[in-house]
């Protein structure tokens, strides 16, 4: 993600305090995390106090205040996935990656996350890597999926 894209997003919303969330979402989607320095620029351009930017950024789970790995691994811990064995799946993911939920490894390969229902409960438990859904996961299948990522 180059600086120019972030600047473009910020410029698009300049002077529009009520678009704070839109701006942060777009930056998060493009850059995968919100550097503090970028949030300062957002605050200045959108004319909102920096503290409010920080408050919003920390309130919502989607925003990441730390850099993420190249691959975002998401284990659904919604209720159906939970009933259908998400805990075992998560244990396997943690074992394979050596990470706990919320962590990123030193080589920035994986970030492991958990989260609420993703709306495809019928194929739970589910693993989502970089937005791609892998349904009906077993711990063994999950290992194979993770190993297929560089």
């Amino acid at each position: 993600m180059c600086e120019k894209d972030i600047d473009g997003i910020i410029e698009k919303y300049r002077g529009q305090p009520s678009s704070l969330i839109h701006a942060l979402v777009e930056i998060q989607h493009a850059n995968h995390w919100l550097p503090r320095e970028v949030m300062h620029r957002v605050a200045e351009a959108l004319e909102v106090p920096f503290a409010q930017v920080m408050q919003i950024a920390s309130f919502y789970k989607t925003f990441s205040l730390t850099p993420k790995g190249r691959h975002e691994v998401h284990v659904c811990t919604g209720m159906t996935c939970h009933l259908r064995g998400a805990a075992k799946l998560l244990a396997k993911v943690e074992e394979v990656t050596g990470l706990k939920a919320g962590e990123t490894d030193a080589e920035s390969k994986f970030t492991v996350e958990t989260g609420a229902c993703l709306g495809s409960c019928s194929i739970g438990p589910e693993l989502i890597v970089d937005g791609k859904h892998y349904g009906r996961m077993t711990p063994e299948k999950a290992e194979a999926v993770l190993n297929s990522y560089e």
Partner: protein
Amino acid sequence: MPRLQSAAELEKYRAQILAGRNPAKPCIAVCAGAACDGMDSAAVAAAFVAAGAPLGDKIEVRTTGCHGYCEKGPNVVVTPGDICYFEVQPADVPEIIAATLKGEVVERLVYHDPNTGAKAVHMNEVPFYKHQTRLLIGDNPKIDPMRIDDYLAVGGYAALVKALSEMTPDQVLDEVKKANLRGRGGGGFPAGSKWETTKNAPEKIKYVIVNGHEGESAAFMDRAMLTGNPHKILEGLIIGAYAIGAQKGFMYTRHDMPLLEKHVRNALAQAKEYGLLGENILGSGFSFDVELHFDVGIFVSGESSALMRSIEGNPPEPRPKYIRTSVSGIWDKPSNLNNVETWANVPQIISKGAEWFTSIGSEKSKGTKLISLSGNVVNSGVVEVPMGTPLRTLVFDIGGGVRDGKTLKAIHFGGAMGGSIPADLIDAPLDFDGMSKLGAPIGAGGLLLMDEDTDMVEVARYLMDFLTKESCGKCVPCREGMKQMLQILTRITEGKGQQGDLERLEDLIQVTGVASLCALGKTSGDPLKSMFRYFKPEYEARIAAGSGEPK
């Protein structure tokens, strides 16, 4: 496409679309809903498109939203005849195309009863579908959500035409009131009275909003509707805006489904292009526009006042003021908020009338209800049945009972703000008030089956944990009360429960329920209340035994 200037122009255009379509020409509808997508339906669709391209004049391929029977995806439905193929793989594609061209059926891919082996070829014979009344979701296989013409072809926007050209705003409101349409987002509040409050509020500027947040765990029907048939919801919203006198609408939905976002954005753009949104809609003099907003992943932002704060660009904290959002909502203007499914019901009420609508359903709950059926059930998916349908029909006839040959222990409705009832209440009818009385309010309509192995203490702990993470944390009873309840439940599940824990929990449920600011906190103890009503011995035994193992 030039803007349609009048109702007559729209009807003429619709006639053109229909004239260009041959109902006898086979059409293969490949589901691209969330569950099928997760089973790589994209590869199946790609294979159909590649194989179908040279046969363009003989066969049509369409990618659609969720068909309903998510358990057996990737799903394919072939018309005419609504032939259902399940768990289709790219390798099956040539065979399906060949059979379709010959008017035959690929027997091995149709439904086979797991017990008797009996086959069901057509949708109306498949057990999952045949007990349903699919008024809302039924169009999904017929529509490519990226094409407004598909919606027009099934009669879309005819209700809007009727409202704008034959009815006054008051008449529209009256019809919705007479239909006794109750909100589908959880409360079951009469939509007509809420509309009226906003309509009668003195401010000139008014807003209407679609709540497509769908934060309830294991509820996925709103997303299925919004992704699969966005125009239906939009049509309902425009009609509502006309009745209420709103100039602007908001759609508030999830940020984490790229397909949903794409379809809704596209639907808004197409409606605008066709003149169904914007200035002077269909020459009626009524102007209305819609803005798309996204939640950023926290459950509490589905609450009405929190959602409105979020649209304003503020943190989604419920507003503590004692004034309804229908009178003072977004930027303190009267704002009418309804759930996706509530809006989706509006066009048919206007087209077919309140009398028709009230002929469906139970005495106090009219129409159909979308249910997300999941958990330990054989056939999970999006289900639509008339209100009043016995839960047994949902669980056994449609759902096929419990997975892996286990027995049913409990039925859970309404996610983290809902409740669980034991299996022996299975004959209760699906009804807003009835289910609330039993302690398992239907909420948005997420129904979970829990089998004999389910640990009810753990379920309550899980739900409480969810809420402590997904609340705003502003008010003390909710933030601190739930934290304490979670601690107690956690120690009980760990076999370290203490004497007096149940009393402590009951005290906390009571105080949190009365003193919390918004409904999240107020109902956070509801699952636990239902557990105490039906499964208390399990809790007592767990505490007495002082061991981590159930009983």
